[in-house]
């Protein structure tokens, strides 16, 4: 998207590498990711299970598990509201420093609304705990704010429901509350880690619409994590495709869907349920991702890539620039590479997607 250039960079990741200590062996979950996140945009991170989507966002939400470290790179948060307008998040060591970032600057909504709330505290109490923590207010004032935001996320009769317990809410309602709590402190970035996977399809669309609406009103940045390219098409402006801990392609949603360059992106798009023909098996990508315990030489996707070339097994491809906003990490973009067309089924995706997405939201499967 061309406006991105005009937007301010909010968060900047440079060559970030994350390692986990698993009983003395090291697993490299993120392998040198650089990424700028712009103020007010909505970015989707896609990739198959285990590709590192959650770990990548945890590096800047401060939620890395205790056996994980950011072993290289830097993460800078730019925020004019902060006293020192930029903070390197990799330097935050103390728990109290992270508490100023988490919730207040960067909030996270997790996949399962059924378990994201404390079952034995009232909704109101849980909201007020967060509000009182971050905004110097208490008691009635916090309650008023909580009720206000409950109304914003579409809870009917918030005054009455304030004292209800989570089990009295439906799944969709709970996810609204989770979003309300996450947004109650006006964070600059909202990370939604598969926010709708646990919900049924109609509720999914409602929740996504709600997030979009709130984003317009409250002006924050959203980072979606999802396997579901249908969701991506619906909500995101930009898409980053992650494979084995690396961003292999990044671009605007149009660029990724209608002009994808990386064979892995092609494969991902081919596996869209909207493209499956009735009666045929769904397309799935052959093979498995490489083990992250070992050092990977060349292109990590090469063993599963039917377009792989000799160079892919020897040298890692650089990020080739396709446009101002569109980059892809594949040797196919090298001028010396033979010309390869994307597979037939993902051409004209535009029309298919439009048709498909409509079906997708109305059919209840």
């Amino acid at each position, binding site marked *: 998207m061309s406006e991105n250039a005009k937007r301010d960079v909010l968060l900047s990741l440079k060559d970030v590498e994350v390692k986990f200590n698993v009983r003395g062996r090291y697993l490299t979950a993120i392998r040198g990711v650089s990424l700028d996140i712009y103020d007010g945009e909505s970015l989707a991170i896609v990739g198959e299970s285990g590709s590192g989507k959650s770990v990548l966002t945890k590096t800047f939400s401060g939620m890395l598990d205790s056996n994980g470290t950011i072993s290289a790179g830097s993460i800078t948060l730019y925020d004019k509201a902060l006293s020192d307008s930029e903070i390197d998040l990799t330097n935050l060591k103390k728990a109290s420093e992270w508490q100023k970032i988490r919730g207040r600057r960067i909030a996270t909504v997790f996949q399962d609304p059924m378990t994201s709330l*404390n079952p034995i505290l009232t909704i109101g109490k849980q909201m007020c705990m967060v509000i009182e923590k971050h905004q110097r207010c208490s008691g009635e004032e916090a309650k008023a704010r909580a009720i206000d935001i409950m109304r914003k996320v579409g809870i009917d009769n918030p005054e009455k429901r304030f004292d209800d317990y989570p089990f009295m809410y439906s799944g969709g309602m709970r996810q609204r509350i989770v979003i309300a709590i996450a947004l109650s402190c006006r964070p600059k970035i909202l990370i939604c880690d598969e926010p709708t996977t646990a919900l049924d399809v109609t509720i999914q669309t409602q929740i996504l619409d709600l997030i979009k609406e709130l984003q317009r009103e409250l002006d924050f940045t959203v980072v979606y994590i999802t396997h579901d390219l249908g969701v991506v098409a619906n909500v995101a402006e930009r898409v980053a495709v992650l494979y084995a801990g690396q961003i292999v392609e990044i671009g605007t949603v149009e660029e990724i869907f209608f002009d994808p360059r990386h064979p892995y992106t092609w494969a991902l798009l081919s596996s869209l349920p909207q493209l499956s023909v009735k009666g045929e098996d769904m397309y799935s990508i052959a093979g498995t991702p490489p083990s992250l315990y070992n050092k990977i030489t060349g292109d990590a996707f090469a063993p599963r890539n039917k377009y792989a070339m000799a160079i892919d097994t020897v040298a890692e491809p650089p990020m080739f620039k396709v446009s101002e906003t569109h980059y892809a990490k594949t040797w196919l973009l090298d001028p010396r590479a033979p010309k390869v067309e994307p597979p037939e089924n993902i051409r004209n995706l535009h029309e298919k997607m439009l048709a498909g997405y409509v079906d997708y939201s109305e059919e209840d499967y």
Partner: protein
Amino acid sequence: MAKYLLKRILFSLFALIVVTGIVMVLVYTYTNRNDLLKSDDNWKKRSGNEQKLYEYTVFQRYGYLEFVDYTTFLKTKYLETEGESYTQNEDYKKAKNAISDSATFQDYPDVAEFIDKYYGEGYDFVYMPVLKYASGKEKAGGGAILLAVNEKSVWNRLWDYITGFITFESKYDVEDENLTDRYIRWEDDPYSKLPALVGSGTKHKYLIYFDSRFPFIHQNLIKINLGISSVTYKNQEITDVINTPTGDMKVVTVQYPTQLGTDQYTETSIDFHSVTYNNAGVSDSDRAIFTDNYTVYSYQKKGLTMLENSFIIGFIATVIAYLMGLPFGIFMSRHKDGLADKTGNFYIIFMMSVPSLAYIFLFATIGTTLFGFPYKFATSTTKIGGYILPVICLALPGLGNVMRWIRRYMIDQMNADYVKFAKAEGLSEQEIFSGHIFPNAMVYLMQGLPGSILGCLTGAIITERVFAVPGVGGLLTTAIDSKDNGIIIACTVFYTFLTILSIILGDLLLSRYDPRVSLTDGKGGGR
């Protein structure tokens, strides 16, 4: 909720009855009652019909049957008409010998009367003819015997047990024609200087009264009859056994009822609140003390009752275990795998794996040699001294247990999604632990809390035995050893009752604490 509770209580009562029935069946039918005789020297000493008669005495004592000996029947009959010297009476002698002739005894009028009487009450009859040698000489213990025997069926027994479970005293309880002034009324109690409910014609004289013993108000009006001991506490109701003070006599200076109104005082241990009606005739020495026929008394003792001893020790130990175990366990979970956690785990495993007898003796040795705590309960010179070691020996394993569970539940909860979410919204570790994790971990402990406290009423077998605490802990095991069927059933009913009560109270507590649990039928919370 009230409706639900009522249903639960009714169901529990039903369960209690079923359990009682099962235990009765087990105790009375599946144990061989002839085993009772094998180790009985009195049985071995006897022979012939006398030995058989003795068997019936034993079976009666253990509650298998009831029987009436024809001789006893005659004794009652002739005592009434002939007085103390009835044995000299010719009719009596003839009646007694009537059963020696196996051919004609049934026609003898006294025998016929005996048979008629007990036949009407559903008894069977056992006749043992005279045993003679070939020479015609009577064998030792071979005299003829006639018995009316009522073998109790389990159903009878269960029915009697249930219908007699709770009894109320009434002014018509005493069978004495000479007692004409029967009443129950409030009077001023000369011993407590407070009002007391006093009965005449009731078994106890004082039905409700105050004294200086905890809980200061006492009653004899309603009685729970759990079961009667046939061996260890000869013919005593088990509720009396566990609720009677133990220890040395307590001597106080009071006035005998005969001294009231004068300025004479006497030093005595008699508990004047305990008096019951004397049916057998008041002796002259009792006349000097009492003004009425309530002259059967027990003594005041310095110690507490068996039940109180056990409960106090258990309760203090439980409180200590929770008060210390909760913070320790929480600390361990917060510093999982740290030094404190490892030490705590070592302690938990130690307490779990070392047999209780071993560590009780260990603590007893340490306590007596290093700290000079009194060893045997009864020999303690101070009142609380004797409690110290038993309490410690119960508190330490309890502590390990509380630490183990709260640590485990805390760690379980630490991985819950809502904890991750709370962290992602910027709450501090302290806030998450005290606001989210601890309350959720307590959900699991909450339900067991009434059980831990009520469980103290069952006593601690080994600890009480090692320190010679007069408590209820050994009741059931001793009863099983001595085949004291009454106590076995009493204990089973009592323990079952406690368990059922613990579960109901636990659920009630949980429903107060955990909003997801609601005590209504069908749809509860979304658990």
